[in-house]
C-alpha cells in the first residue's frame, strides 16, 4: 500500500505491506534509527514518537494508520541546532546510561512537559510509567525532566544531587 506522511517536517511516501509497523517504516524505510524497538507488547516505550503532537508507541501503530499524519521522532526534536530542554536535561542530569530507552523516554518527557511544564514528582513518575529503563532506576530521569521543566518555565533548575551529597 502507498503511504505518505510528514516526518520531522519532511514529506515522505512509499509503499509498504499493510502489516508494516510504523516503527519499522521509520527505521527501515526512512533510516530514522533513533526510534528503538525494545519489546513486542507495547510495554517498553522505546519506540515513542509524536503523531500529530500526541505521544504514541510507534510499535502499536501500523504505518498505514499514519497516512497523512505529522510525525516527530527524536531526530526531529532539536530545532535550529538547539537541543530541546528535555535533551539538555538528560545530559545535564545524567538521565541516561546505555541510551537505548532514551529516545522514547525523551519524547514522552517532552510530551508531558508540553501538557504541563510544572509537574510534581509523582506526576512525572506516573507520566513515564509506560517507558521502561533498566539502567538508571529512573532517579536521574526524573531529575532530568524537572531540570527541563524549570528551563521551560525560565527558572533556575535545582542543583544536581552531586552538589548536595556530603550532608
Amino acid at each position, binding site marked *: 500500500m502507498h503511504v505518505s506522511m510528514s516526518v520531522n517536517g519532511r514529506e515522505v511516501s512509499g509503499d509498504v505491506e499493510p502489516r508494516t509497523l510504523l516503527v519499522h517504516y521509520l527505521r527501515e524505510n526512512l533510516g530514522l534509527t533513533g526510534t528503538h524497538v525494545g519489546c*513486542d507488547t507495547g510495554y517498553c516505550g522505546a519506540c515513542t514518537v509524536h503523531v500529530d503532537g500526541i505521544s504514541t508507541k510507534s510499535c502499536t501503530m501500523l504505518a498505514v494508520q499514519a497516512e497523512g499524519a505529522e510525525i516527530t521522532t527524536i531526530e526531529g*526534536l532539536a530545532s535550529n541546532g538547539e537541543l530541546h530542554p528535555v535533551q539538555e536535561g538528560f*545530559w545535564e542530569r545524567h538521565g541516561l546510561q*546505555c541510551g537505548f530507552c532514551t529516545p522514547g523516554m525523551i519524547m514522552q518527557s517532552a510530551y508531558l512537559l508540553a501538557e504541563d511544564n510544572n509537574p510534581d514528582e509523582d506526576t512525572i*513518575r506516573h507520566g513515564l510509567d509506560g517507558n521502561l529503563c533498566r*539502567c*538508571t532506576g*529512573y532517579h536521574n530521569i526524573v531529575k532530568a525532566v524537572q531540570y527541563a521543566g524549570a528551563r521551560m518555565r525560565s527558572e533556575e533548575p535545582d542543583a544536581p544531587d552531586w552538589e548536595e551529597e*556530603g550532608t
Partner: protein
Amino acid sequence: MTSTISPTTTTSALGGVVHRKEDPALIQGHGKYTDDIKFTGEVAAAFTRSPFAHATINSIDTDAARAMPGVHAVYTIEDVRHLGTLLAQVPVGALRPLLADGVVKHVGEAVAMVVADNRYLAQDAADAVSVDYDPLEAVIDLKDALSDRVKVHDSLDSNLLISWVGPFGAEPEDQQKVKADIDAAKEGDDVVTVSQEMLNQRLIPVAIEPRAVVADYNPGYGSMTVFSSSQIPHALAGAIGKTLGLLSNQVRVVAPEVGGGFGAKLNVYSDEILVSWASMQLGHPVRWTETRREAAHSTVQGRGWVATATIVGTKDGEILGYQLEGIADMGAYTQNFTVAIPFLGLFVGSGQYKMPTWWKIDCVTTHTNTTDAYRGAGRPEAAYYLERIIDMYAREIGMDPAEVRKKNYIPNDQFPGAVSPVGFAMDTGDYGTNLDALIATSDYAGLRAEQKKAREEGRYLGIGLSSYVEVCGFAPAGLAELGFSWSTYGLPAAFSGSGLVRVNPDGTATVQIGTGPSGQGHETTWAQIVSDRLAIPVEHVKVRHGDTGDSPMGIGTFGSRSAAVDGSATYEASQRVRAKAAKMAAHLLEASEEDVVFANGGAHVAGSPDSSVTWAQIAEIAYMPHKLPEGMEGGLEASVVFNPSNATWPFGAHLAVVEVDAETGNVDLLRYITVDDCGNVINPMIVDGQVHGGIAQGVGQALFEEALYDETGNLLTGTLIDYPLPTAADLPTFELSRTVTPTDINPMGVKGIGEAGTIGSAQTVVNAVVDALAPLGVKHVDMPLRPRRVWQAIQEAKG
C-alpha cells in the same frame, strides 16, 4: 583508612563530575546500536523454536518454508553439526549444540534457522517449518532434578554438574569439620539456632536493547565483520574464528552502542555463530535481532536458587556459625560462565562477617533455558541468604539487626588482607564505619520512632537494612588460576585488561581499551583518567572501545571490573606516555626532566609557568624524530596490560522503608537509602548512576520479577506483560551517600560499583517488608513480594 561520607564535587579530572561525552549522540537519536547499522544486500534470519521442554525430534520438514517467496535458506543441525557445539569458558555439563540435535532440552531451543529477504518474511518462513516431536517428561523442579529421577542429558552421569563447597581451598575433611563444628555449636547451652529455606527466584535480565547481530563475510578479503550487541567482543571474535576456521585477524567484531547488558550479553551465543556462518554460505550480510519473547527463551537468565540458611548464635548476638546448603538451576545447557556463577557467590559466602561458615551449592541441570551471569551473578544470591537469616536471628534474640551485624563484622585490624571464613583474601574494608554512616544518614532512631507511631495507628511500616561485601574487578590472577578462561579451547581471546594511550600530533589524545561497555560511561571516565595524568582537557581525549579491529586485547565489560583493571591499565599507560613526554618537554624547555610539570594542556618548568610548551609542540617533535635528541625514541603512545594481584572487595549498607497494605498485600517502597563504598571515585555522577540502576534491579527482584516455569517447562512470564519490570512510578527517589576506603591493589584505589546496588538491595527490601509484618507474626516471604504472596504469608502467620 576511611574518610567519612565524601564531598563529591572537585575540580580535578579524577574524582570530579564530568558530564558524559557519550550523551550528545544518544539524546539526539544518533547513537548507533547493532540494529541501526545497515548493510547493502543484507538479509534477515529467524528461528523455529521448540514448544516443548523435552522432546525427541522425529523429523523436520523445511520444504514449505524453502518454497516461500524471499526465502534464501533453511538450516538445521544437519547443516552445522560439523561446526561443533557452542564454546563455553567453564565447560562443565553439556554444551549447547548450535541447533537442536535430535532432541530439544528446553522450550524455545532453536531447531531451525531461516534466512529471508526481511524479518517479516523470515518469521513467516520460520513458522512454516514443520517439526515432528515426541514429547518426553521434563524435569523443572530443582529438588526433583537433583534426585536424577529424570535425566536432562543421557551423556552425563547425573543432573548434578558440580558442587561448590566452602571454605574454599580446604580439604574435604576440613570442610566437613567446619560443618560438624557448627552443628555441634547448635547443641550448646544458651544458643539460638535459626534456619529458613528460601527461594532466590530466576530472573530475566531484560536489557532494553534486545540482542542483535549482523555479519558480513567478504570472500574477496576473506574477512568477517560482525556487529553484535555484546559485552565481550574479543571473546566473540575468538569463538567465531575458532568455530568457522578463520584466523583471529580475519574476524572483526564490533560492539557498537550496546543497550544494556547486565550479564545477558556476557556470552557467546549460537545465533552469533550461525549468522556469521550463514553469511559465508549465502554471500549476503545476515542479520538477526531477537524479539522480546525470544529473549526470554534463548538469552540467558539469572539466579534460580533454593537453599536453606542456618545461623547458630548466642542470645546476645554473637554468631557462632553460618551454614548455607542448596541447589542452583543451571538450565539445560552450559554456556559461558554458567556453572561458575554460584562459585562467585561462594567468594562472598560469609559476607563481611567473621563467623565460621560452611557453604555448599549444588549446580543442577534442568529442562529450562540456560542460566548465567545476571547483574551481581552469584553474589546477590549469597548476600540475600546471609542477610535474611541474620535478620531472622536478630529478631529471634530481640536485638536490633544493625547491632547484630556490627558485632560480627571482621574487625578493621584484619585489613588489608583479611582472609574471610570461606577462604578468600580481601583487600581493604571498614564495615563498622560504613554501617554507622547509614545509621546516621538515615536517622535510624527517628525511623524506628516513626514506625512505633505508625504501628499504634494500625499501619504496617517496615524498616529493613542489610550490609554486603562484593568481590569484583576480576583479572587473570583472580580467575584464570581457578579455571576460568577461554584457554580450554585455545581461543585467541584475551583474559586481561588493557589500555592504549596515544597523544596525537595535534596534542589531543586517543585511548583504546579492551572493554565492551553498555552504558557505564567509559568514554567519559577513561578520558578523566588520561586527563588527570596528562593534563590534556577531557574534551580532547577520545576513547574508543568495543572494536576488535582497533582496540587492544581485552576481556570485555562485566563483573564491575573495567575501571579497576582496564582503568588501571590506562592509568599506567598514561604514566608511561607522561614519562616519555617529560623527556621531550625537558629537551624543548631546556630544563631537567625532573622539573617538568604537566598542567593546562601542556608542560612547564616547575615554578615557572611561563616557560611552557603545549602538547602539540611536544607531539610535533615526537612524530618528527629527527628533531629529538640522539637516542630518544619517537612516538607518544603506550599500551599496558594490567594484572592486579587480587580482585577488589567493595562493600556497603542499605536501608529501605516500606508500607504494606495488610488487607491486600500491596507493598509501597517509600524510601531507599544507601551508603556504598567502592574505594576512590573517578566520577561521582556516574558512580551514583550505577548505584541507582543497581538498586532498581534488586528492588525488581524483591517486588516484581520472576521467570516462572510451569511443571512441563513452559515459561509463563515470557513477555513484559507478565514479567513486570519496575517503572518510574514504582520507585522512590534514592538517597545515596558514600564512605571511601581505597583498595591497595591498583594505582587509583578504585574498586568497582556496577553491581553493588543490586547485591545490596533485594534482601534490604524483603527485610523491610518482613519487619513491617512482624506484628502479624510473619517471619519470611519468598520473593518476588507480589501482593498475593505477601497476603498469603499474612494468612499463614495468622494460622
